[in-house]
């Protein structure tokens, strides 16, 4: 087996300041793993530890079954694409793409074909003789990807690759990256991003990072449907997080009894109930919440209601309403017991 990445309790610190705390994580060959987290969460540090630009103070980094912790970056054989692309401005597109092959002393006869192939794959073949400065941001991005792919790496590191693009280009490039991954099914991709949409769209699994630690790891569906803690719930998709107390057969939220699966949580324990806004409906139903409309936003196909329930703001995304309620109107919300997730770990309220 040659592909894949494994972090074995990797810790990185600068001047005693821990920026990555004992990360254990495995990216399988051919898997797309998104490292998702806010800035300063340690996700970029984790990527740089794989690339070899930071040295862990403890732990080992493996590429396949090769321990690369002590190898310099140029001996790791990794493709990398960074936020600002870092295309060499003094080289034409084709020279940029050929750079890695020349540096590795690939035979001249082989270089031309591989450059053409990489440019073809990213749709940049027509731009081969241009200089980077003559290209748009999206085109530079494609060249950067072609340059990384030309060396035929087992592992591709993408560091916020789309954050310098505008929203429309970004969704196009997302589809493009997904297509590239289908064409290269054996390449492991480590994708660092702070954008949950990119992570949910592209990743086979998402690793959620916060404050130098791994908070959760799972498939996008798992993290979205059944988040294991408040941070994951609020960072992967929107979430209503209601402070509740576990009661028999459900939870109590400010005196209101709500039915939900409690999975053996002790009665009387503090917990957080997570309900996705689009699973909250307007009107009567099971698990009723009554409150007054604080704010209402029209979003085309939906209305977003912010409802004050017992001092807590509850979000509800409902299909566009003919006669939407106004600010201050009393409304009733409901949600199905099976749509709520009870979080008992890392509860922040008391």
């Amino acid at each position, binding site marked *: 087996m040659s592909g894949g990445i494994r972090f074995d309790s990797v810790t990185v610190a600068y001047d005693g300041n821990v920026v990555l705390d004992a990360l254990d994580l495995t990216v399988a060959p051919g898997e797309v793993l998104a490292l998702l987290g806010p800035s300063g969460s340690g996700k970029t540090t984790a990527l740089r530890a794989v*690339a*070899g*630009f930071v040295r862990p103070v403890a732990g080992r980094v493996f590429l396949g079954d090769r321990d690369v912790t002590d190898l*310099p*970056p*140029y*001996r*790791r*054989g*990794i*493709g*990398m694409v*960074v936020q*600002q692309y*870092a295309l*060499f*401005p*003094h080289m034409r597109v084709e020279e940029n793409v050929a*750079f*890695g092959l020349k*540096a*590795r002393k690939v035979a001249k006869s082989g270089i031309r074909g591989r450059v053409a192939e990489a440019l073809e794959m990213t749709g940049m073949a027509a731009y081969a003789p241009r*200089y980077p*400065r003559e290209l748009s941001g999206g085109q530079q991005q494609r060249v950067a990807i072609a*340059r*990384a792919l030309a*060396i035929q790496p087992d592992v591709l*590191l993408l560091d916020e690759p789309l954050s310098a693009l505008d929203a429309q280009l970004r969704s196009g490039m997302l589809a493009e990256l997904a297509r590239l991954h289908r064409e290269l099914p054996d390449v492991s991709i480590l994708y660092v991003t702070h954008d949950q949409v990119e992570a949910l769209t592209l990743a086979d699994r998402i690793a959620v990072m916060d404050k130098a630690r791994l908070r959760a790891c799972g498939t996008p569906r798992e993290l979205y449907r059944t988040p294991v803690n408040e941070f994951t719930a609020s960072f992967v998709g929107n979430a209503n997080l209601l402070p509740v107390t576990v009661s028999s057969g459900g939870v109590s939220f400010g005196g209101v009894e709500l039915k939900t699966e409690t999975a053996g949580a002790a009665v009387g324990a503090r917990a957080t109930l997570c309900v996705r806004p689009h699973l909250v409906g307007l009107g009567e139903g099971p698990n009723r919440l009554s409150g007054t409309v604080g704010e209402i936003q029209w979003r085309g196909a939906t209305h977003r209601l912010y409802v004050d329930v017992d001092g807590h703001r509850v979000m509800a995304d409902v299909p566009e309403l003919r006669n939407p309620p106004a600010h201050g109107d009393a409304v009733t919300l409901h949600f199905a017991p099976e749509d709520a997730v009870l979080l008992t770990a890392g509860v922040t309220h008391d």
Partner: protein
Amino acid sequence: MLVHSRKAKWAVWTVFFLFFLPLFALPLLVVLGASFATNWSSVLPSGFTTGHYSAATRGEALQALTTSLVTALAASLLALVTGTWAALAAAALKKPYRTVLDALFMLPVAVPSVVVGLAILVAFSQPPFLLNGTRWIVIVAHTVLVTAFAHQSVSAAIVRLDPAYEQAAASLGARPSYVLWRVRIPLLLPSLTAAAGLCFALSMGELSATMMLYPPDWTPLPVLIYAATDRGALFAGSAIAVVLMAATLLVLLAVSRLRTKASYR
């Protein structure tokens, strides 16, 4: 322009004409005027002649011009290589060592050039490094004096160089030496040529250290100008000064053309 109101623009132009022109342009014009004259006793020079120029472009003066050009070229190339090397090495060092190395290279700027000249004279007048009396002592002195400027301007450029380029190159499998020659040096090229131009111009005009060191068969142009004016031949000296100015300008112009070709962004 940074000023927008009509009044402010006028004020800026007035300041320019009052201070810049008399201070910077006028002395050069005077030298140019004097170089064509045999006499300057009233407001304007008189007795138009091109005789000074025919003297300034042959014989001893021509020899001195070649001497100056060769010295400046050798000194600026040597300074560029050592300065760049030192700047690259310093950039790879940790903070306290880097500061020490940078300070070391700044030393010849802080020390008056007369002192540098004297130091080199004393140091290289005895075996095993007996350079006194040869052209090499002049070239060495100029190199020492201008390396500081090369080092400083290249250091500044290295700091501005985005580390993402090196890292991208390294991740693509390029060894540090390959990264240096194919990525870093080409990206630094505009700064390198600018530094070379600066060194060349400084060396062309160097007098105070040169005075103490030059052997009879290696007289640079500034020494000749000084000697001419010292014996009262002001107009002949002016002509040589104009030749020096023109030669330096021409080379700088050529270097700057090289620079525009090499700048990518």
